[in-house]
């Protein structure tokens, strides 16, 4: 019986006893059976039918090519011969369990299946099983696909992916290490600056203190000249102190360590406080100081930093305004922003220098003759502080007429922030 069916499904070329040109052959060629046989042999997958005992009963040409057995060798061969030795023991059990639930399905889902050629070599396969009932006996049709090519591509892809992942991991680790280094350097810099600031302020404490003491002449009178000299020491020591503070500020801003501490406060009271702090300097030059603020609400901002912003601008205004000039602050709400202007009737800033004044250490050239030099850091710090608040700063000025520094600060609600 097996031989009969094997004969039936043998490829035509094998049936040498039949001349395809003979009339009988022509009948066979055109028959449905013949067409099915051609179909079977045209399939690139190996197709095998196995009887209940596991013997191979039908096969196609692809099976011969794939496993290296001849047709004659195949017929009657136990299908387990095609299963690698390592998996052979389990195969019989799988076959009997298939008999309990015979349906068309892939074999060993999720497993890496392998076939074994006649020469003993192994190759990856994918197998689909279908039941075939023949006279009450369960035969199984196995469609075996050699997936060596696909596996090779998959393996190549996997190894590429692994390689990329490894490279990426390495790069990430390097990046993280670099980040840690930068962070460490940054924190060392901050620590260094903090301790440097402390070390510089300690001697300045006594330089300024003793100079003040001498200037007060409580320890004895000074000649005019001595008094002037002590005044110079004091002035330059205070200038040095200002520089130290501002360098610390700018380095904190640059390392991103300056954080705002926002709170709600009375804006006008804040303006008044800043003005009080500058009143003495203005008075010595007979400069009129005016508060023209029209915003009498509370502002949600960093109070200390806002005072610093206003103080820097007012201080500059007084510094660069000749005797009997005027300095004033205007402020009003416009939409969702607070517009503040610090204006003066001072010497002004030439147009060509206006874009540079917010740069670090920039000092306005000839026009500042006669004015004590600043640190060159006041405006850059002011600009940074304004920008930290989400605002902007600009200047409008006419030499000889005066300057006006305009701030636009977005009004932020406390809850929203």
């Amino acid at each position, binding site marked *: 019986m097996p031989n009969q069916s094997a004969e039936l499904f043998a490829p035509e070329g094998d049936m040498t006893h039949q001349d395809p040109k003979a009339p009988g052959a022509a009948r066979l060629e055109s028959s449905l059976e013949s067409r099915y046989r051609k179909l079977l042999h045209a399939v690139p997958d190996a197709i095998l039918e196995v009887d209940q005992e596991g013997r191979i009963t039908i096969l196609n040409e692809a099976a011969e090519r794939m496993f290296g057995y001849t047709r004659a060798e195949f017929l009657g061969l136990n299908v387990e011969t095609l299963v690698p030795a390592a998996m052979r023991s389990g195969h019989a059990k799988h076959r009997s369990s298939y008999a309990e639930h015979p349906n068309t399905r892939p074999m060993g889902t999720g497993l890496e299946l392998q076939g074994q050629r006649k020469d003993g070599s192994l190759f990856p396969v994918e197998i689909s099983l279908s039941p075939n009932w023949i006279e009450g006996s369960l035969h199984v049709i196995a469609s075996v696909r050699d997936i060596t090519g696909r596996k090779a591509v998959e393996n190549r892809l996997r190894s590429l992916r692994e390689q990329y992942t490894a490279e990426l991991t390495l790069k990430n680790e390097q990046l993280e290490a670099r980040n840690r280094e930068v962070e460490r350097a940054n924190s060392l810099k901050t620590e260094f600056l903090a301790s440097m600031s402390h070390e510089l302020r300690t001697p*300045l404490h006594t330089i*300024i203190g003793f100079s003040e003491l001498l200037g007060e002449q409580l*320890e004895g009178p000074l000649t005019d000249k001595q008094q002037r000299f002590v005044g110079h020491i004091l002035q330059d020591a205070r200038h040095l102190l200002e520089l130290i503070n501002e360098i610390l500020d700018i380095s904190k801003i640059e390392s991103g360590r300056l954080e705002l501490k926002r709170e709600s406060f009375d804006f006008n009271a804040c303006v008044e406080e800043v003005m009080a702090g500058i009143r003495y300097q203005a008075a010595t030059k007979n400069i009129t100081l005016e508060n023209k603020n029209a915003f009498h609400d509370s502002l949600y901002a960093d109070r200390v930093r806002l005072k610093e912003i206003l103080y820097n601008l007012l201080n500059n205004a007084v510094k660069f305004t000749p005797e009997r000039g005027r300095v004033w602050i205007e402020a009003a709400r416009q939409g969702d922003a607070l517009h503040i202007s610090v204006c003066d009737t001072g010497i002004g800033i030439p147009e060509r220098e206006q874009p540079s004044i917010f740069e670090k250490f920039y000092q306005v050239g000839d026009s500042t003759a006669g004015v004590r030099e600043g640190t060159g850091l006041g405006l850059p710090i002011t600009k940074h502080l304004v920008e930290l608040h989400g605002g902007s700063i600009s200047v409008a000025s006419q030499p000889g007429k005066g300057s006006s520094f305009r701030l636009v600060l977005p009004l932020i609600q406390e809850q929203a922030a």
Partner: protein
Amino acid sequence: MKKILIADDKATSRELLRTVLERQGYEVMEAADGEEALQKALAEVPDLILLDLQMPRRTGYEVLGELRKDARHATLPIIALTASAMRGDRERALAAGFTSYMAKPVPLVQLREEVQRLLQTKE
């Protein structure tokens, strides 16, 4: 005569503070480090202490912590003096229990006023 203890490891700073405060008519005691400050303050309770925060042996914070445990020093005016002047220093000092905080360099006018104010409040 009101007695003020100056604790500062810098001799020039102590001399400056002593000169200013003696002129104001106060009696001045000195300590050159934290441990000495603590011993002197415990032995002879002053009316006010100027305590530098960065000192050898014991920091100003440690001295303050010890002193505040002593009933005689529980409400004594103790001023923190520091040259560090980082933002948040004042808040930290006041939170720790200092009565007041001054950053070096301290303008002499401010020093006199603050000492006077605290001694008056004490009375």
